[in-house]
Structures are given as C-alpha cells and as structure tokens.
C-alpha cells in the first residue's frame, strides 16, 4: 500500500511549467552562469572568436565520446576504456597513414571499424557473459593503453597527411564573397539552423495543439524560441568572425542531432532506456536486452575511435600519452548532465551541456592562470555538487 496515490494539488499552469522546465534546463542555466562568470573574470577573453573556436576544437572529442558514454550509462553500465581506445586508435591511424602510407579515407574507415570491433569485444563480455562493465572496461583500459605503447614503440608518430589534418584543424570552405572578417557561409548556415530550430519546434507545438494536447503557454514558447535563436545566431556570429565553422563542429552538431533524435524518437532509443530502467521487465516485454547492451558498447567503440582520430588530427601526431584520462572527463560530463548512475535516465542535451561545462571550466581556469593542480580540485567539486543537486531535486 502506498500513500503516494493521493492526487497532487493543482499547480498554477504557468508555475508548473516553469518549475518543470527549471529542472530540465537547470544545467543549461549553470552553463550560462559559468560562462558569464569566466567572461567577466577573464575580461572578455572567454567569448573572443579565437578563444571560442579553440574551445570548440579542444572539447570536440569529449563531446563526441560523451554521446556514446551517455548510452552506455543509460543502459546501467560504464566504459572506462574510452581514453585508452581513443589513444590506441590514434596510434593505429598514424601507423597506417604515416608508416604504411595507406590512403586516408581507407585508414579512417579501418580505424572506425577497429573501434567497432573493440566495442564489440568488450560488449560481448558485458552483455552476454554478464561480467560487470566496470571490470571489463578497466581491463580494456590497461590493454589498449599497452597496445598503444606497443604500436608506437614508445615514440610519437607523425605528421599526418594534410587532408587528414583538416578533420580537426580545417574550416568549412568559403563559398560567398568575404565580408570583412566575417565568414558569410558560416553565418548563413547558422541563420538557417536557427530558423530551422524555431520552425521545427513551432510546427511540433501546433501539431500537438491540433490533437488537443496541452502545450506550454504561448509566451513561454515564444520567449524560449527567441532565446534559442539568438543564442545560436550570436554563437555563429562569434565563430564566423574568426575563421568560420570548424569542420569538427559540423560533425559534432550532426552527431548531437542524430543521437538526440535516436534517443528521443526511435524504437531502439526507447528500448535502450527501458533496458537501463528495468532490464528484467524489458526482457519480459520482448526486448533483446543483451543485444542492445552489446550495441551500445559497439557504438561507444566507434565514437571513441572517431574521437581518437579527431584528437590525433588536432595534435598532428600520435603519442603514447594521447587519450590519457579522457574517460574521466567524458563520464563526468554525462553525470553533470543529469544521467543516473543507476541507469535508465539521461539526456543527450544534458551530456553535451555537461561536456561544455567541463570545457569552459578548463579553458576559463587556464586563462585565469589557475594551476592544473587546483583545476582538478575545482572540477571534482563541481562534479560532486552537480550530482548532489540532481539527487536532491529528485528526492523532493
């Protein structure tokens, strides 16, 4: 018998919406607050076009891996090996492209396939052999760190072919006549994106309305849309006034959109959340829980490989130390973004915001000249604090 059945008192509709959305957007507001804080503290350096572009480049691989890690965490698992795998793949890429002069497209595809195979190997033990993912991927972390060293024979290997470097250091080509320092193609893409986002959400809202579904109040919707559009436009304006949209930002945005869609709207996404929410119930509802768990690890392997390639291309060399400790930032990003360590809960948007919070803090503290020692302390405390707030919110 539970007493929770008593109906909750009716809340003012607007009040209810704001409260619900506060919880959803809580982390986004924290990100904005943190950005404002560093913007002020660094005397405006944080949001300078050059720094912002660097910020994106520096954090792209964390964001990419966070997308995969989110799914792993949602199924109730963890992957500690992603940093080592990224490093290992970078090493293999260097071996292929630099030593054996393999064509970069072929090498790129081979590396992603190798990532998938690594994910499959680890996922097999976790999903079908029921070995705790913590242990399997801890083993994987050691194995691939070792293999990276072996492949590189303890040395750095580079440089990469120029086209491959474009993956990280390239910007989208300028199609339109230049307008001062502003890159019009990038600006155009940003504007189209902003309009597209607003259009999509307006269409969704009116569709719900036409089916008699309760929607958020119009003023709230309007405000949200304007804010969203402005934020996208301002961000693109800043980026466009340096060297335009970096290639990696385009890849990242596409991946975020793809994973957001998969998790929210597709059958497989829904089923992955069900596995994490209650694996036994999911399995008795005809969901292939083992197969899905296996797939999330394969997916993680591919994304770790992609991140490894992006990182290698950025450094333009593969080093045995590449990827060291990445897993910590990636996992922290997911938890800061509201994923539950017990599985079944977590949002793509949250993980991305979590990754950006980590990135902005790294960047901001570096600009302020805070040593690497205290940076770690502060990041650790932020992680703990974010999760505490989340747990507290859920208890209420």
């Amino acid at each position, binding site marked *: *018998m539970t*007493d929770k059945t008593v*109906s909750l008192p009716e809340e003012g509709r607007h009040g209810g919406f704001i409260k619900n959305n506060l919880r959803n957007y809580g982390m986004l507001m924290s990100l904005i607050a943190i950005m404002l804080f560093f913007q002020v503290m660094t005397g405006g350096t944080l949001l300078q076009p050059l720094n912002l572009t660097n910020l994106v480049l520096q954090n792209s691989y964390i964001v990419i891996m966070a997308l995969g890690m989110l799914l792993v965490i949602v199924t109730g698992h963890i992957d500690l090996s992603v940093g080592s795998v990224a490093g290992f793949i970078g090493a293999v890429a260097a071996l292929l492209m630099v030593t054996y002069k393999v064509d970069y497209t072929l090498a790129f595809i081979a590396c992603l396939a190798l990532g998938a195979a690594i994910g499959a190997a680890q996922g097999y033990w976790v999903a079908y052999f029921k070995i705790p993912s913590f242990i399997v991927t801890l083993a994987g972390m050691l194995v691939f760190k070792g293999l990276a060293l072996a492949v590189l024979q303890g040395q750095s290997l580079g440089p990469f072919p120029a086209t491959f470097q474009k993956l990280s250091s390239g910007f989208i080509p300028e199609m339109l006549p230049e307008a001062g320092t502003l890159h019009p193609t990038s600006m155009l893409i940003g504007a189209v994106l902003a309009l597209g986002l607003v259009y999509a959400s307006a269409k969704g809202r009116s*569709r719900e309305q036409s089916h008699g579904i309760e929607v958020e109040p119009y003023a709230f919707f309007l405000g949200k849309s304007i804010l969203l559009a402005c934020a996208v436009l301002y961000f693109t304006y800043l980026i466009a006034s340096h060297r335009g949209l970096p290639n990696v930002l385009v890849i990242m945005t596409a991946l975020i959109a793809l994973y957001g869609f998969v998790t929210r709207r597709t059958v497989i996404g829904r089923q992955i959340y069900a596995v994490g*929410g209650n694996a*036994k119930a999911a399995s*008795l*509802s*005809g969901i*292939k829980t083992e197969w899905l768990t296996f797939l999330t690890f394969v997916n993680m392997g591919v994304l770790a490989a992609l991140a490894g390639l992006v990182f290698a291309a950025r450094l333009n060399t593969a080093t045995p130390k590449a990827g060291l400790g990445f897993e910590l930032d990636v996992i922290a990003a997911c938890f800061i973004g509201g994923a539950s360590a017990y599985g079944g809960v977590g949002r793509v948007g949250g993980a991305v915001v979590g990754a950006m919070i980590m990135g902005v803090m790294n960047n901001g503290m570096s600009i302020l000249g805070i040593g690497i020692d205290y940076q770690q302390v502060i990041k650790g405390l932020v992680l703990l604090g974010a999760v505490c707030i989340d747990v507290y919110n859920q208890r209420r």
Partner: protein
Amino acid sequence: MTAMLEMRNVSKSFAGVQALRDVNFSVHAGQIHALVGENGAGKSTLMKVLSGVYPAGSYEGTIVFEGEERRFRDINDSEALGIIIIHQELALIPLMSIAENIFLSHPPSKFGVIDRDEVYRRTRELLAQVGLKESPDTLITDLGVGKQQLVEIAKALSKRVRMLILDEPTASLNEADSAALLERLMAFREQGIGSILISHKLNEVAKVADHITVLRDGRTVDSIDCHAEPIQEDRIIRSMVNRDMAHRFPERSAKIGEPVMTVENWSVYHPIHPERQVIKNVNFGVKRGEVVGIAGLMGAGRTEFAMSLFGRSWGTNISGHLRLEGREIALPSVAAAIDAGLAYVTEDRKQLGLILADDVRKNITLASLDQVAPGKVIDDIAELKIASDYRNRMRIRCSDVYQETGQLSGGNQQKVVLSKWLMTDPKVLILDEPTRGIDVGAKYEIYCIINELAEAGRGVVVISSEMPELLGICDRICVMNDGAFVGEFNGADATQEKIMRAIMRNERSNSVPEAAEMGGSQP
C-alpha cells in the same frame, strides 16, 4: 482494562491532501487489532505516525503509549519503547545469514568484538520461538518468502517488543505459511504483546483478530469487537468500499470455443540445477473464451511453467509441444512469443512488470512499440493517444499518462501492466497472481477486465494462490503440485476442500514414492 496504545484524533495532511482525519485507534495489551481498508485509505500513514516516521509536530492529535503521551521524533524513539513495525517489503540483507540479520544493529559483543556464541545461542532461541527450523548460518537468499517473514519477526523479538505492527505479512505467503504466521501471532497474544495486523485477507482477519478497525479515506468508518459480535465479511467489505459487494466477483456467462492453446508433454529443467526437473511432462490447454485457473502451493512450479511457455523465459532443456490455434510453434524468445499472440503478466509487477521510473505511457507501449512507430520512429502523438485510450478504458487513476508508474497504487500499476499486454493483442493471456497486494475495489475491476478478455474470445489462464478468487472467476481449475497437474475441476464443482485435498494427496504420495508406485501397478 486500559488501552496500551491510544491514538486520539489523529489528523495528517500532505500538501493540502487530507490523508487522516480525526482517527481514533486503540490497542490493548495481548490484543490483535486488525486494521483494514482499501489502498490509500490511510493505514500505512497511520502506522507511520505511530512509529515516528512522521515525527511529532507533522500531524495533529495525540499518541498515548503505556499511560504516557509520546512525541516520537523518529523511528528509533518508538523502537526504544518496543513498538516494532515489520514492513510489507522485507528489509533483510539477502547475502547475510539469519543470525547476522537478526543482530544487525545491536549484536551482543564484548569490547566491540561480536560474541558469536551468544549470537548463535540467542538466534536459536528466537528461531524456536517463531517456529522456524533453520540453522542460524543459513543465508536469507536461500529461504522462501514465508521463512524470511518469520526471520523478520524473530528480528523484532530480539528487541524489547511491546507492540508488533505487521503490514500485510501474508501478502506473498502461501496458505500453509500464512497459517503458521498467524499462529505465531496468537502465541504473542498470550505473552501480552499487542499486535496491529494490516491485511487485505479478510478470512485471516476473521480468524485471529480481537478487534477490527476499518479505515476509509483517512477516517475510521467501522470498529468491530470480534468477541461481542459475529464477524461479517460483507459488512467489512461494505464499510471499506462503501458499496455493497454482495457479489465479490462479477457475473459472467462463458462462451467457450475451440482450443486456442494446447501444451503436450511439456518438460522443463532448473536453470541452475539442470538435473532437477521442475515441470514434469505436463499437458495443459485453454480454449477461446475460457478462463482457466492454475491452483497450487507456492513452489508448485506454476510460475515456472508459465514463464517457460512464454518464450522460454525460465528454465533450460525445455521440451514438449506447444500449439497455438492448432499450429505447432516453437517460441525461442519472448519477442517470438509476443508475436505469436502469447502474453504473460508477471506476479512481480515492480521487479518484472514495470519500469517504475518511466511514465504510464512508455510502460503501456513498451511491448508493442512497432504499432506506434512506423519505420522505427515513434509517432509521439499516436503513442499518447493509445496510452490515454487505455488509461480511460482500464480506468487507470493517474494525473496524466506522463505520471511515473512508481507513484501509482498497486491496483493502478497492475492496470498499466495489463494495458501493456492488451496492446499486444494476445490470443492467450497468462495472468500470474493478478491481484496480489491489491485492494478489494481494484480486485473487482481486474476481475471485470478478465471477463471482458474472455468474452472477446481470448484464452485466459489465471495463476493464483487465493483459492476463493479462482473459484469465483474460473471456468476450469487445474491443480498443480510439484511440477505436475494433480487434479482438474469444473469451476462449478470446485471447492477449496477439493483443491486442497488434491494437493495434499499428491504431497503424501510424493513423500513415500515406493508406496505410490505400488499403488499404481495394481489393477
């Protein structure tokens, strides 16, 4: 005789919702006081007020225990006075032994080192007191639910207990274990311990209670002194639900058609001990429009049988023939079973039936997402409409379909699980303990749903440990014991006695296998 416990004019509200209104409740020493009422009537809230879970000040009214007014700040305060509450969900640690569990919080020790001899001596004493014949070393996980319940009581007795509160202690026990537990309760009465028994099982209440208090919507609506007047179950039920329940089971006229599912020579082995045959070459069948009950004691193999049929979700080395609508089919996976038109509604809805953190909508569509997802992309509006539709049809009481299922009452949770399986449009539904832990009103609704399912031409199999329920709703009752069917009755002819006799006869013959064989060989 003055009361040991008196709760006077207790009121409590949560965020504007009145959970208790001016409840008066008293228990004498050596009295078993039964507290009955529908889910949400306020029974648990009242007990939480009594045990200090809701501290003094968070409610109105007074609590007088053993002659003094008490203001408990937390559960430790009430425990110190000997008020011990045993919750419906057992709070034992599975991988620890009985002895370790009993003396978890205050083990007898010398200088901080646990005195093992003393722990074992006292554990044996306590186990003898509750009538549990197990070694103190036995791990909790190796005990059945009935025995675990007794360990909980032994644990309570290890403290100074003056008043024992049992929240649905027999909800998951079979008849024999329930009887044993109630006997213990009556033994405590002799020792002057006051007991409060919260239970949905009115026959048990009638058997042991000295006094019955009925709560409805947070008020005391009836108070019956069992020694002064005869106990009328109908009166209690009427008070509980405020409607006449002369018919505890809905009327139905069965229209039974062709066989829809037949099982022949079905045999299943234990997944962990593969040499143990759990289901022993059984035959079984259900027809269109028929409600078939499977009776039996806990551990008879009923759930195992059902789950082995449902896409081999239990057991190994499964063999036998399964026919759906005359066609023999192999169901290697749950997905295949669902596609073939089989549905299994689990006995354990919280662990196996629902994703408690997910909302009503997601739970309902979980087993048939393809219906709302053309091209594997979920059409959220179609999904919302279907979920709302089931909510209305099944009368699921929730604020909207976005409410978390974990917040719903047992009856409403069960309706969500039923909706999930109805959405798969099954030909045969196997319902395992469909009304466990559900109040009388919701039970009636579940029975009506079962009837509707049968009327729609589906085959319905109901596994239940509550015999009156099977007698009330089934066209045919099969009795399972020790992995085999040992009797079959027409719904009209069956009685509790006949079913029990079938089980007991089989139990006896199992215990002397030679004799049974000899008997079988005679002409």
